[in-house]
């Protein structure tokens, strides 16, 4: 009998809405943010940054700055060239990917506004800032490429030495890999006797905008160099430092203290971290760099930024037959750590929950002279989900049925799991029918449809629209073998250790690195249940490569489904080990030892001993079994065999003021299926926050550059994050289809809300004005854009749905000719 079978049948902790352990320090202001750290003799850094998007660094005169009061030294790239390292990409998506060197402080040329050209070190942050103004940089401006579509023409090059702006091409073809039919044939057939929906959607550039600006403190004064950094990825960061700076990995300790949010934005090895490290090593003194928000906006990586050309084909009755995706993805000036891999992560998700027989995904990545782009909450999957969920609404409009009906017609039924998708992913579990039924009920779907009709008929200036998003996603990154097959530079395992301490408390070490998620609480719940110890007695340690030496950190909704499973396995090993101690102490056979709720008992007797007593006995080591070591500790590393596939049905009602274009959220309901839930409170919080980030992409946020390559939305004045006053309270619920890929049955939830909500909102806005002939509004759907769409469609009000409003992508194909009439021929 295994420990798994012996565990308590009741789970007092798992599933309970435990209030978070983390809160006490956070609500009282006793938190360790990196910027709080003060070390003896610590010096402060200010960065001199390029005001140009693309320029040759002709010369840098540091004399005046160096002579300024309290300035220790001013470094250019040349001064740290021997040790500054490189900011690497971990995921070259093709063998021939073009990847420019990304020096933390470039020596010859800057490739985007905000790049660091010099580092001022002074005794105070103020002195450093003052002196930074005195550094005289002579730039020779070069032509800058700023527009993604123009980048494809190679007329102006982001990196002249590469000879092209194109970085790489990546394709998934269902016919080629044997997971489905030929998409070309599907399109050909649909042009004859089916439906072809062709759309081009813009995924605007976003800024993660974590609340804690990034900060790094480097202490080079001991045997090891210690780097404190506001990062999601201390382990990956240590690897990157060791791989490129010449510092042996064993001499580097990276600590992520309390980290104030990340959302993918702190999943990076940054120029700021590397420059601070180099300068601290050169000077042999502790150094701190904390960015301002404006610096963060321009230098921390951005997210999204794609053009999506999409062709969906279906039978006349709305049964989908094929999907072709052509992505252009803007990498910005450099291939970031995940880089081109971010849009590629969408490859398996455009087909979503629908049974497409044929599918092709093409992705081309390009460089531009803008801030680099990398993971932002959802990373590749929100873009894919947006595209398919928008397309399904378009298909419903074309067929003339309710958007939920067209989805139901095409989705995987609950009794068809496990289901291998046309992209080749095997979805382990799910129940789209159940989630949708519950969401409709909570939403009052039919009532809102009736109100929509009434407003439409009465010509109400405020129209109502209903948006649907029946999303799924793949998370829990990731099976190492899969990553290897994709040429990703690392594995996707996670590690955990459990140490039973002599006095009854338990130390849990996790390689996941929380930055707001609540791991300390959820991990305690899992361990408390598993080992039968009080929740309060579990201490979760993380975010320090010396304390938690092995880890792959936190992103991609992976912590629980991968790290949580590692935890379970470590706990089970502890129990197995403790059984031997118990058998020894109770003078019984190991086979007769049963374990429940922290107590080891001898089957059929009332003899027993608690796990804490065994921990003390193991510590004392006066008397223990011969075949074991005197400790109750265990390590486990879990490498998942599959991703996890959360799904859900999100319904959104938006009011559109047709006089101003202003939109207002009326109601938002989501029913997510994330498998078994460890802590419902934490799950709800993740959903709420995720929703608002996704809604913000639909309505408010966008990183915009001017023609000079200056980020116009470069502060919180112009990058319009929503406040409490702009958002509403949400209605959330769950259905439960346990995951089969981990023993807890859990699925990731960190990104679900963000992935699902964006298309629900845009679908609702388009639905509100679709009767005027509008079938798309670019994000963010600003009042101006909505109003202008209404104005330009004005004449068509009441004209009914106009199918396939956008020109077809394939020149000369039959339905380019309106008279061919294959899809009503209403090409404009």
């Amino acid at each position: 009998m295994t420990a798994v079978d012996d565990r308590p049948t009741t789970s007092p902790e798992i599933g309970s809405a435990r209030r978070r352990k983390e809160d006490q320090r956070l609500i009282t202001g006793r938190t360790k943010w990196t910027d709080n750290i003060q070390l003896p003799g610590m010096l402060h850094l200010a960065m001199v940054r390029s005001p140009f998007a693309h320029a040759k660094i002709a010369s840098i005169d540091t004399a005046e700055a160096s002579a300024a009061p309290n300035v220790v030294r001013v470094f250019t790239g040349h001064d740290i060239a021997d040790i500054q390292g490189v900011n690497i990409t971990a995921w070259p998506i093709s063998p021939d990917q073009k990847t420019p060197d990304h020096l933390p402080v470039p020596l010859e040329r800057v490739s985007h506004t905000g790049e660091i050209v010099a580092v001022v070190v002074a005794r105070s942050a103020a002195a450093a800032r003052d002196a930074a103004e005195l550094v005289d940089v002579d730039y020779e401006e070069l032509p800058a490429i700023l527009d993604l579509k123009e980048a494809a023409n190679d007329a102006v090059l982001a990196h002249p030495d590469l000879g092209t702006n194109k970085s790489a091409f990546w394709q998934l073809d269902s016919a080629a890999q044997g997971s489905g039919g030929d998409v070309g044939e599907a399109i050909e057939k649909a042009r004859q006797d089916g439906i072809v929906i062709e759309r081009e959607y813009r995924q605007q550039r976003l800024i993660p905008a974590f609340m804690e600006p990034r900060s790094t403190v480097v202490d080079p004064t001991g045997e090891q160099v210690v780097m404190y950094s506001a990062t999601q990825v201390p382990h990956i960061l240590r690897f990157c430092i060791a791989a490129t700076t010449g510092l042996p990995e064993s001499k580097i300790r990276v600590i992520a203290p309390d980290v104030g949010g990340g959302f993918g934005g702190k999943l990076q090895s940054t120029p700021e971290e590397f420059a601070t490290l180099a300068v601290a090593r050169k000077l042999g003194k502790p150094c701190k760099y904390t960015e301002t928000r404006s610096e963060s906006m321009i230098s921390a990586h951005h997210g999204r930024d794609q053009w999506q050309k999409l062709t969906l084909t279906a039978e006349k009755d709305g049964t989908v037959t094929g999907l072709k995706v052509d992505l252009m993805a803007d990498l910005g000036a450099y291939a970031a750590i995940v880089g081109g891999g971010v849009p590629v992560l969408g490859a398996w998700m455009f087909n979503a929950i629908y049974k497409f027989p044929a599918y092709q995904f093409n992705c081309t990545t390009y460089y531009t002279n803008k801030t680099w782009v990398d993971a932002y909450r959802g990373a590749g999957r929100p873009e894919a989900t947006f595209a398919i969920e928008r397309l399904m609404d378009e298909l419903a409009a074309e067929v003339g049925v309710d958007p939920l009906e067209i989805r139901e017609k095409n989705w995987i039924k609950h009794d068809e799991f496990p289901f291998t998708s046309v992209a080749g992913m095997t979805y382990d579990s799910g129940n789209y029918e159940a989630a949708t039924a519950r969401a409709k009920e909570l939403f009052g779907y039919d009532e809102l449809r009736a109100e929509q009709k009434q407003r439409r008929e009465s010509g109400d200036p405020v129209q109502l629209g209903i948006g649907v998003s029946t999303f799924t996603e793949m998370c829990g990154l990731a099976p190492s073998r899969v990553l290897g097959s994709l040429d990703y530079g690392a594995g996707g395992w996670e590690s955990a250790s459990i140490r039973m301490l002599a006095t009854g408390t338990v130390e849990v070490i996790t390689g996941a690195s929380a930055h707001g998620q609540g791991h300390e609480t959820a991990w305690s719940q899992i361990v408390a249940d598993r080992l039968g110890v009080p929740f309060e007695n579990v201490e979760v340690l993380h975010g320090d490569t010396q304390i938690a030496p092995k880890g792959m950190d936190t992103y991609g909704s992976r912590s629980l489904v991968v790290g949580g499973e590692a935890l379970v396995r470590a706990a089970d090993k502890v129990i197995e080990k403790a059984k031997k101690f118990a058998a020894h102490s109770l003078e019984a056979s190991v086979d007769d030892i049963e374990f429940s709720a922290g107590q080891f008992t001898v089957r059929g007797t009332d003899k027993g001993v608690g796990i804490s007593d065994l921990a003390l006995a193991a510590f004392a080591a006066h008397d223990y079994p011969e075949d074991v070591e005197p400790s109750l500790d265990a390590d486990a590393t879990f490498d998942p065999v599959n991703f996890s596939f959360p799904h859900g049905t999100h319904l959104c009602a938006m009011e559109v003021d047709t006089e101003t274009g202003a939109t207002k959220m009326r109601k938002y309901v989501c029913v997510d299926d994330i498998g078994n839930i460890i802590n419902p409170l934490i799950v709800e919080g993740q959903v709420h926050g995720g929703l608002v980030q996704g809604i913000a992409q639909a309505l408010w946020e966008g990183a915009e550059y001017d023609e000079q390559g200056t980020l116009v939305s470069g502060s919180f004045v112009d990058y319009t994050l929503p406040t409490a006053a702009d958002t509403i309270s949400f209605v959330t619920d769950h259905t439960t289809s346990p995951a089969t890929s981990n023993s807890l049955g859990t699925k990731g939830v960190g990104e679900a809300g963000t992935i699902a909500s964006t298309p629900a909102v845009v679908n609702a806005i388009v639905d509100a004005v679709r009767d005027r002939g509008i079938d798309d509004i670019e994000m963010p759907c600003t009042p101006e854009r909505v109003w202008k769409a209404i104005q330009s469609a004005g004449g068509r009000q009441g004209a009914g749905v106009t199918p396939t409003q956008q020109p077809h992508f394939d020149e000369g194909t039959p339905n380019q000719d309106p008279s061919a009439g294959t899809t009503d021929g209403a090409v404009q």
Partner: protein
Amino acid sequence: MTRITVTVDGASYTDEVEPRMLLVHYLREVLGKVGTVVGCDTSNCGACTVHLDGRSVKSCNMLAVQADGHEVTTIEGLSTNGELHPMQTAFHENHALQCGYCTPGMIMQAVDLLKENPNPSEEEIRVGLEGNLCRCTGYHNIVKAVAAAAGSSQRSDA
């Protein structure tokens, strides 16, 4: 340098400061009150919110010299005799924080909000927090926490 005397969280401090020093930097760097944090440079985010003579202000948007002779309360001075302030408890109970970076400012503003309006509607709570950005919670549970602290009936939204 200018000499200032400021009462912070009940204790009086006298320091020589540069006139250009922001109040938030005085709190953090001179007094070590690092519970109050900086989240932006445009006074949009509200993470640095403290009370000046009992009213909420953004401590990044004041000079330390302007606080001379005044009384400042930070998140670190909110609990009394080891007892959490009811707003702190409400944030904990309602899971109104995740990464916690906005939390000190959010709590200080929420306390001010209830001082102005002890029984606010959901709408009034939302508008009252418009000067504080949070990126984690979607505000849902923050609004719930403030309502709970006010003792007003909680919404029944599952």
